């Protein structure tokens, strides 16, 4: 059954990812991306990483992608125009390169990564893996964690400054939303850690 679920999620993930880059409508792309993230969360669940799965949904689907949608709507984007020789050439080159890269990767794995049955001892203790992650995050990775908060602060200030534009009082709604989404993106980490 795990395998079946894996197959389903994997297919969904790959399909949605493809649709993200194929669909001409940015809104559709964003929605497919949300779906891809959700199937990714499913894969995380299969890998016994429940906490990561939930945070994936909260942060990516709940915060980041909403921000994307916001911007798309704010800019009032409709279908992309993808015409012209230059675009076609680049598209061709991109696909060829992508396939080349994938082929290379497969070759790489084939050469070096034996398809071993990898199942480690079950990580999650009885209390669930939230606690375990919290332990690691707040001991070994405490310093990076704190640095992360600085990073978010910097990003927040940067977003506000950039989006504010030059003149005063220009579109005051956008920075507020950015800041909101930022703070939200940061919050689950803290929340999860403290649990």
């Amino acid at each position: 059954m795990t395998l079946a679920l894996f197959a389903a999620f994997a297919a969904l993930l790959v399909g949605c990812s493809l649709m993200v880059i194929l669909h001409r409508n940015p809104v559709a792309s964003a929605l497919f991306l949300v779906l891809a993230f959700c199937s990714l969360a499913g894969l995380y669940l299969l890998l016994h990483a429940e906490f990561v799965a939930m945070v994936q949904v909260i942060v990516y689907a709940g915060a980041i992608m909403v921000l994307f949608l916001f911007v798309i709507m704010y800019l009032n984007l409709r279908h992309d125009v993808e015409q012209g020789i230059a675009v076609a050439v680049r598209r061709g080159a991109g696909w060829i390169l992508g396939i080349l890269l994938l082929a290379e990767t497969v070759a790489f794995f084939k050469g070096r990564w034996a398809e071993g049955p990898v199942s480690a001892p079950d990580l999650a203790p009885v209390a669930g893996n939230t606690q375990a992650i919290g332990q690691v995050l707040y001991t070994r990775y405490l310093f990076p964690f704190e640095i992360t908060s600085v990073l978010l602060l910097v990003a927040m200030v940067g977003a506000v400054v950039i989006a504010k534009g030059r003149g005063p009082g220009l579109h005051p709604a956008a920075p507020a939303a950015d800041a909101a989404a930022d703070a939200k993106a940061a919050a689950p980490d803290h929340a999860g850690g403290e649990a």
Partner: protein
Amino acid sequence: MLALIPALPLAAVAVNLILGDRLGRRGTAFLACGAVFASFVLAALSVIHLASLPPGARTMVADVYTWMRVGDFKVDVAFLLDPLSSVMVLVVTGVGFLIHLYSVGYMAHDASFRRFFLYLNLFMFAMLTLVLAKNFLVMFVGWEGVGLCSYLLIGFWMDRPSAARAGMKAFVVNRIGDFGFLLGMLTLFAWTGSLDYERVFAAAPIVFHPGTLAITFATLALLLGATGKSAQIPLYTWLPDAMEGPTPVSALIHAATMVTAGVYMVARCHILFTMAPFSLETVAVIGAATALFAATIGVAQNDIKRVLAYSTVSQLGYMFFACGVGAFGAGIFHLMTHAFFKALLFLGAGSVIHALSGEQDMRKMGGLASRLPWTHGVMLVACVAIAGIPPFAGFFSKDEILSAAFASGHYGVWVAGLLGAVLTAFYMFRLYFLTFRGSSRLTHEAEHHLHESPAVMVAPLVVLAALSVVGGFVGLPFQEGGRRLTTLEGGAALERWLAPVFGEGGAAGASHAVPHLSFTTEWALIAVSVAAAAFGIAMASRAYAKAAGEPIAEKAPRLYGLLEHKYWIDELYDTIAVRPIRALGDVLWRFWDEKIVDGTVNGVAYVVEWASAVLRVFQTGFVGTYALFLTLGVAALIAHYLVR
């Protein structure tokens, strides 16, 4: 406290630089002189403290900070005051202060008054660093520092081409000497693993066998450095040209301080030199040769400062051969007395020049005795002192050197020295008579402006004159009141003072030579040298007291010409060294520099320009293109790892 002695002039330099013209002339003068005077007071206090210690323990050390530490090798910026450096530091600060004072008057009307004192103070700092250094590296800093300052000061009037050239010459010649010093220093380091005096001198007897090649090489290299700095054969040529600088500079650098650095260094390294008899011999020969050689040139010079310059070279020769015969104490003694009377001579000459509004040619002087009474008086004192008439300072030190040479069996050197003494007396009194006696040959213009120097210039002259009179008495055995009045007794005051450095009765090499002269021989030697001096004076008097022309030139024109042109040595150097090097430089410039070096650089630039033109095509400014190439690169990298 020790570190403050060199630091004060440096601080004055800093203040001078920072405040600049806001200081004003008076402020600049006060600052510069005050700093040097404070150094002098500090030095005096330090020396008094030093004297209060028992003779064996007379060293004061000041570690300022660790300059560098590489493995076991460590160099501190550290200062050392022992009897040897105490003499030097007193001479440098004392005479230096007087010259500073004098300069206030002499340079009063110069436009670059502030710059002058800036350089002077910087020079004092460098010289004091050199003298007080506790290791070779710090000494080298001072050594280079004085070289730099002498360049700056000689070329002080840089708008004069001759001054600029003289400064450059001094610098280049000094560099050759510095190369020797560096070589010697590195040799010592290679053998002893240290640059600290104490450790080098302690290690030297262990790592070197006396007379071996290594120690001889090291000392000869050091000697090369010393000849450069102290203007000995073969590197003396810069000193006479250095007269292009302002006269106080000549007095400071070329009489009292910088040129004595070589002597000081040889004396400082006496342990090394006594271990290398060949080097010691060389020192003696070079010294004696220079003493005689320069004296002969001095006879035929007409520029008052040039006469003094060659006199300096000659007197330095005396100091050298004193060291060479092992009488280091006598060398230092002469260094001290020479500082007094040579500074006096230069400053007196400066006073004359000042009075004559810049005239330096003795042929256009004469009969100044009554017009410049103070200057005349002190110059007379100085001439007598340098000629070696007792009881003036020069007599004691020069006689001690000659006795030491005789006693140590260097008869050739002794004869040369004696001849030099005759010539010294002769040319000094030639100078005296041409300048102050006879009839006036002044131009009308100069006559009109003639005036005695201001008090600020005369006062140092008087002080120096007094020192020139009594300075020699430190060579007397004051404390042995009842015993013989000789300078050759091991108990003379200065010699006893220096004993902790050079060993009782001189260094090891000298101990066997110096003390054992009979009473009669000593007095005989004294009589001979006094007679030589008197002979020289008498000759000068006969030739120049009344004459208006140049009697030597009339009687022996070819000899005179040879002497006047300084044996054509400058031209010789020019032919054998300067011109070939210049030609080589020309070739290097036109071919190597312009074609190869510039060609390479320009070629690189062209290649870059061409390559940029190609690469510019790829800089589209579109992220998409960049991403494409980035990915291509990643794919290529992975492919590389796959294939490998």
